[in-house]
């Protein structure tokens, strides 16, 4: 099932969104809004993750045990739910990153020679 991206019209497979979220959480814990903003910024505004995709993904990742959540105070002292990577999450991030790199290279080779 493809995720809808506003504006860019690029469909990301479910697994890729998970990878992006895990990567975004690598430096430290963030809440949902921050995660979506960060992905938007770092991808040079190409990728915009909607709530409709983000939050189900976050719940899924939490269920798999790769991230864990806690409630805390946000920058402007509002209550927000922060997510951070667990140990197995970090391992999963590494594994998925490796896989992604390999996949991207392979696809590029095929496209290059085609």
């Amino acid at each position, binding site marked *: 099932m493809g995720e809808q991206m506003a504006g860019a019209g690029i469909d990301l497979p479910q697994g890729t969104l998970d990878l992006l979220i895990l990567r975004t959480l690598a430096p430290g814990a963030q809440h*949902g809004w921050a995660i979506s903003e960060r992905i938007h910024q770092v991808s040079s505004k190409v990728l915009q993750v*909607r*709530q*409709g995709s983000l939050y*189900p993904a976050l719940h*899924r990742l939490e269920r*798999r045990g790769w991230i864990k959540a806690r409630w805390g105070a*946000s920058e402007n002292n*509002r209550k927000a739910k922060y997510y951070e990577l667990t140990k197995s999450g970090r391992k999963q991030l590494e594994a998925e990153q490796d896989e992604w790199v390999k996949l991207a290279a392979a696809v590029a080779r095929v496209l290059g020679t085609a």
Partner: protein
Amino acid sequence: MRDLRMRMRAVLRRSEVEREMEEELRFHFEAQVQKMVGEGVDRGEAMRLARLAIGGTEQIKEECRDARGVRLVETVWQDVRYGWRSLRKSPGFTVVAILTLTLGIGVNTALFTIVHGVLLNPLPFPRPERLVSLWEKNVLDDGQFNVVSGGVFGDWQKQAKSFEQMALVGEGTANLSGDGGALPESIGTRQCSFNLFSILGVPPAMGRFFAKEDDGPSATATVVLTNALWKRRYGSDPGIVGKTILLDGRKYTVIGVLPAWFDYPDARVQLWQPVRHEVSEADMRSRGNHRFFVTARLKDGVSVEKASSELNGIQQRNHRQFPGELMGKGARAELLSEDLVRDVREPLYVLLGAVGCVLLIACLNVANLFMARVTARRKEIAVRAALGGSRWRIIQERVTESLLLTFAGGGLGTLLAWVTLRWLVALRADLPHAGAIHLDRFALAFTFAITIFCGVVAGLLPALAVTRNELVGALKEESRSMAGAQGRARLRKVLLTAEVALTVVLLIGGGLLLKSFSQLRSVNMGCKTDDVLTMGFTLPESKYETDTQRAEFFAELLRRARAMPGVKEASIVSVLPGAGHFFDNTFQIEGAAPLPPGQFRNAVIRGADPDYFAAMHIPLKRGRIFAEEDHRAADDNAMVITESMAKEFFDGEDPIGKHLKIEWQGAPRFEIVGIVGDVLSDLDRPVEPTMYLPLNSGRLEYGSLVVMASAGRDVTTQALPMQKVIAGMNPDLAVSDVLTMEERIGKSTESAMFDAVLVLLFAVMGLVLAAVGLYGLLSYLVTERTNEIGIRMALGAQRGEVMQIMFLDGLRPTGLGLLVGLFAGGVCAQLIRSLLFGVEPVDAQIFAVVAAVVLGISMAACMYPAWRAARVDPMTALRCE
């Protein structure tokens, strides 16, 4: 683990989790608005854009819930509530379905519990798989096995290495008396080697068991009571140990009481005695006198097969070593549990099969009922499917509703099973380990399993059928077309065919068993059986040691009995017709060629007084009956033999005048003076060659009094007077089994009747269910085709024609089911062949009757709906949809 915790939290703290989601989404929304405001967008505009970006909050929440994986639990709960409401709204359907299921599940649980308790549950002893019983090959070398003699047991005990210990068990009866005013009673006893209870691993409930010192001819007489006897006759007396009781007039000291759970080998055995104290030394040494069961415990690491073949080898050597002895050529060992359940195993499995059929029929019926409901709602379901509802969701709904019903049926069924079990166990005291039959966790697990099975089957079939691609057809106005109605009914017709087939199989089984029972009951015994009163007694050795004493007792009893008013005939025979094989012995014929070593002449022995034959209408074929005067000397007495004995041993010659020597102590000699007609020893076995000795030879210590009343009088009124006569002669002598011959025959055919009646009962249940199902199906078809009927009538069809069409529509699946059932019934009948007596598995009469009954009931069931179809008013029919 975290996953589970998350799910649990999501289910249990639902509102909290919902609130958190709400807050999180709101935070995101506000942050987005803030960002846009920061970029210069008007706040109101920013909020609108943000709302657009979010889309549907509910949908997001739904997807989050989905991601949390609690969807199933929530939807199931929703379905349960919905199903409960919809079942309450149609009470008729609900009640019928629940009753059907209660019946099916209830009888299945009851039978399973019995099968499990009797057949599958190991004996209540520690490590029961190490317990074996040992058998000797039959002397006649016919492939059967026999009980063991004391001498052979001794040989085995010395030579066999596969067993830890072995013990003998002998059967007997005794007259129990001597406790104040209580009447003497005849009880079943067992005599055993002192180590039997340690082999079985039973601890005493009170006192102790036999020690080696008790197991000898000169030991003090000791006895161990069963718990049941202790409770019943001695009122659970806590001081019973050390008290004295009288058995056959001799004093015995009670040294112990068995625990309450010990009902081995069955409930009829009431006390145990040490075998070497009860049985003479000569008998214990004799290799030819076969009378003992042997129980043993295998050594660790030895398998039953290994032990069996070792034993066989030992006995073969034994036989070669003592060729003159009356021994078998081999032996075997088998599991102790095997021995106990052999006779009841097959009937129980047959009953289990029958009851399984009932369950299937019940399931199919409920599935049929469900089909009716579901088809009525097919438009609604089609609409849901068109709007994106998942097929599995619909199926889940149906199955949930059906599981609600089956759980209700299962609960009530368990109650029914409990009641049924108590009744059944009270009825059949001969079931081994009957005490172990109760609703334990296995039975409950079984009930649970079949409940789920029923629910899934009854819910799944209709759900699958209805959610197939006909959905589109349902949305279109196909209800007017014949094809639509018939297609929808197809599954129901298939279900009905299956129901009818199963019912036919049950009816055939029940019919065959019933005919078999009736054949058994009406077997010609060879003697008079109506208006004959009988009672049995055993003369204890203590008071009647010599032959003369016994002969005197018999003669006196006959004299007194015949003198009673209202008595037409009174006679004594050692063993009544139909009472079993009991006693046989080998003999030699004087003047005949001696048989090669290892072969013997053997016949059943009975004792009777001279008037017995005439009284019992046993015909005298040739010669004469022995008379009082014939008793000349111990080695010159007279006897009569039966026709079958004459045929087997004297074929071609005239037996009358020949002399026989019975290979007994003292080798008495008899002259054959007459030939009488045969009498059956067992109802379901062919006649056995028998010889009748005069009662006044006094050889036999047990007897049955046979009394016939004079014309016009009821023979049962003689029961009490006769018992008083016997009590008058010896107050310690107990009388057993005071029954008429008819009652005796009834008792021995009891289990056959039981099986037949049960299977027929199940068959009738199945038939009722199938009939109801057929009625429902045809009513449904008529309703569905009302439109079509209207058209036909408008086009000129007669009422009679319409009725015929509907009739045939209902009869077609029934007819098909009947054919399938007859075929399957024929196959199943072969399986129960060994239970049938005097009936062939494919009995034309039974099959014809079953077919007629099923067709008749089906036609009756179709009658009302078909008649209703004929009464349809074409105008109304055409107008309705």
